[in-house]
């Protein structure tokens, strides 16, 4: 062995250990600073309010992230219209898997886009990274659906430019119901819906007329739609859990009754089982967000044209006839280079007639208009001036008017807490246990409250 090449084994090990230790200490020093105390409240409370550009001819480049798919194409087509108003702003429009990329991008602060399309339920979770849009939105806030402002607000700041309002509607198979002698238009409350389902089942033995969602995630989303009608949600504006309430007992009790009486088809949203039951006439009532309109239009080939939509039933006479289910907004990260220019893009898209007409009106992607949501901005959501046309899958129904009128009834809400999706493991799963007969509504509330409090709220 050559003396100069290799050291003595013990020396070698010691040197390696020392090197590793040094390396470990050096490397672990990289990254966020660690404190042992609570964060500075004053610092945490400081807000960053975005201001619109002061110049008359703003110029620069912006990067906008959207999900790939039809909506991307719709937004992409609006860029030319935007550039007619703002010719010096270049828009780099990118189709991105936002759920996979946004978190890491915001944490690392590398190549941060100027604007991002984001689910409302995720806005609160990223609020620390986002501009407060209170000042730029001020001229419009009075005309935006209260639920959309509330869902984007946290600690007095508004973190998203509201995009769409997704009112819950009751979709029903009018042809099948008429054949069975059931008049769905008479349904005004959830008790009426139960009664109509019983009548239908009597006329069509073996049917299970009302949809019960089997996906834990979508089941929880639907539960929030029902609760939203009663003006509540899983957490209040301070992030405090408020599941243990009469409103949730009422909703869960009703769902339990549907299940116990065998009036529900339990299936995942538009899974083969779900589609089969919808096409066969076994499932004729579908309380869901407006985006279910896509199904009779494209997926339910056998019953397309048989379906109609009406506002959701109310929980009590005179109660709100809709609640929001889902929805998205545009957020502007603080680390984006030209967030103020991105605001101009979204302002054009949502609050200028040329913009919102290009999104919801007839376009190359949707020749009849975008009928899976309505604008959150009330001047755009005018019942007298429909942006999208009658929906053939709904027998040529004027869905615009139905949805806009339902949307007007959605009560204000609260921001979805950062732990909302984590709650699916508890609340969403326990609702499924209730459908399996393993839990009562009270047990769902009690168990979910305890688990969410311990595992999610207390660990924020």
């Amino acid at each position, binding site marked *: 062995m050559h003396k100069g*090449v290799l050291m003595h084994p013990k020396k070698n090990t010691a040197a390696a250990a020392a090197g590793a230790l040094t390396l470990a200490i050096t490397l672990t020093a990289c*990254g966020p*600073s*660690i404190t042992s105390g609570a964060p500075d409240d004053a610092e945490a409370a400081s807000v960053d309010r975005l201001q619109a550009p002061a110049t008359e001819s703003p110029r620069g480049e912006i990067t906008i992230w959207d999900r790939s798919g039809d909506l991307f194409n719709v937004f992409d087509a609006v860029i030319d219209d935007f550039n007619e108003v703002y010719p010096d702003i270049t828009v780099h429009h990118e189709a991105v898997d936002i759920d996979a990329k946004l978190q890491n991008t*915001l*944490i690392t602060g590398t190549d941060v886009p100027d604007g991002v399309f984001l689910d409302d339920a995720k806005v609160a979770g990223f609020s620390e990274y986002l501009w407060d849009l209170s000042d730029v939105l001020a001229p419009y806030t009075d005309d935006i659906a209260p639920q959309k402002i509330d869902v984007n607000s946290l600690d007095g700041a508004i973190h998203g430019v509201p995009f769409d309002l997704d009112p819950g509607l009751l979709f029903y198979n009018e042809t099948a119901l008429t054949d069975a002698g059931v008049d769905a238009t008479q349904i005004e409350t959830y008790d009426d819906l139960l009664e109509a389902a019983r009548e239908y089942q009597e006329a069509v033995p073996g049917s299970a007329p009302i949809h019960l969602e089997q996906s834990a*995630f979508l089941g929880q989303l639907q539960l929030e739609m029902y609760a939203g009608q009663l003006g509540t949600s899983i957490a209040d504006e301070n992030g405090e859990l408020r599941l243990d309430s009469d409103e949730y007992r009422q909703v869960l009790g009703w769902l339990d009754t549907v299940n116990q009486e065998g009036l529900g088809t339990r299936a995942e949203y538009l899974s083969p089982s779900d*589609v089969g039951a919808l096409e066969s006439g076994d499932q004729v009532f579908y309380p869901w967000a407006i985006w279910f309109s896509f199904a009779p239009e494209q997926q339910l080939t056998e019953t397309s044209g048989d379906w109609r939509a009406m506002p959701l039933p109310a929980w009590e006479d005179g109660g709100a006839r809709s609640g929001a289910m889902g929805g998205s907004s545009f957020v502007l990260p603080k680390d984006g280079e030209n967030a103020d220019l991105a605001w101009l893009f979204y302002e054009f898209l949502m609050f200028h007639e040329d913009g919102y007409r290009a999104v919801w009106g007839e376009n190359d992607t949707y020749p009849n208009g975008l009928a899976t949501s309505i604008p959150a901005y009330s001047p755009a959501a005018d019942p007298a001036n429909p942006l999208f046309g009658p929906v053939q899958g709904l027998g040529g129904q004027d869905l615009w008017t139905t949805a806009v009128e339902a949307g007007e009834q959605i009560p204000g809400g609260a921001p979805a807490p950062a732990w909302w*999706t984590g709650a699916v493991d508890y609340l969403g799963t326990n609702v499924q246990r209730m459908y399996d007969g393993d839990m009562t509504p009270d047990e769902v509330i009690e168990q979910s409250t305890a688990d969410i409090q311990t595992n999610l709220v207390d*660990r924020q």
Partner: protein
Amino acid sequence: MSVLASPGPVQGGVRGRTGARPLLRPWLPRKVAPYLFVLPFIALFVAFSVYPMLFTLRLSFTDWRGSGAAQWVGWDNYAYLLGNEMFWGSLGNSALLWLMIVPVQVVLSLLIAVLLNNAKIRMRSFYRIAFLVPFVTPLVAVAQIWVVVFDQNYGAVNGLLNILGLPDVGWLTTTAFAKPTLALLFLWKTTGFIVIILLSGLQSIDASVYEAAAIDGASRARQLRSITVPLVRRTLMFSVVLQTLAVFQMFAEPFVVTDGGPYNSTTTAGLHLYEHITRGDLGTGAANSFLLVVVVMGLSLVFVRLLRTED
């Protein structure tokens, strides 16, 4: 004087084996040179493996959520996980999936590999490729097929059962069947890869060993038991370790097919870890990662120890 006849070093040219001094020697000590040669690898390894690992370890003792200063919480994240029902549930789910997958896969792959190694089989190349096709098919596409084929009311599998007079089974919607259905997907997807690994092991066995055994009257089964298995034991054990890692890190399959349901019965250790990360709880996610590392390393060491004992 001819240049070719010159005995001295050729300046700037290739040196002979003897009598030549390396050009680098004047400024590079010889004992440093080996380290310099491995430096590119070490640099990449440190940047992309060591640093992320140490960073994660550090994170696991904080409550960091991606921004601002991280607050030191000591062992809190570990204590929380070790007392958390869902963490243990996810490990239990992975352990059960391991039992459903790895032993079956090892036996099945070995038998297929032995058959494909037989020179008398026609279209061997075709079969080898055919077994590998599921492995290279995008998982999301396969998963969607699984969802349709195993649908409770309209799936082909229940259709076949109905023809035989058997009732529908909730393959993906009941806790009793969701795990086996997921295990079947994993088996179908990855067995071809293990077959290829075992084939390479089988091909290293000298044919004369089998010829000698045949002359001595050993049956095919005896040859498999007494020659094939002992001689590919290391390859088998490698496959077991590889699949143990894969099963405990399994993420995409349950994510796409069952989303961890029903009742979290298919929430694997890998999927549970991901759930912490997606809700921004990076500290708990990091602690979960390290606990998973401990479990997987422990299992791998057991298998390695078993292998050495056999040796």
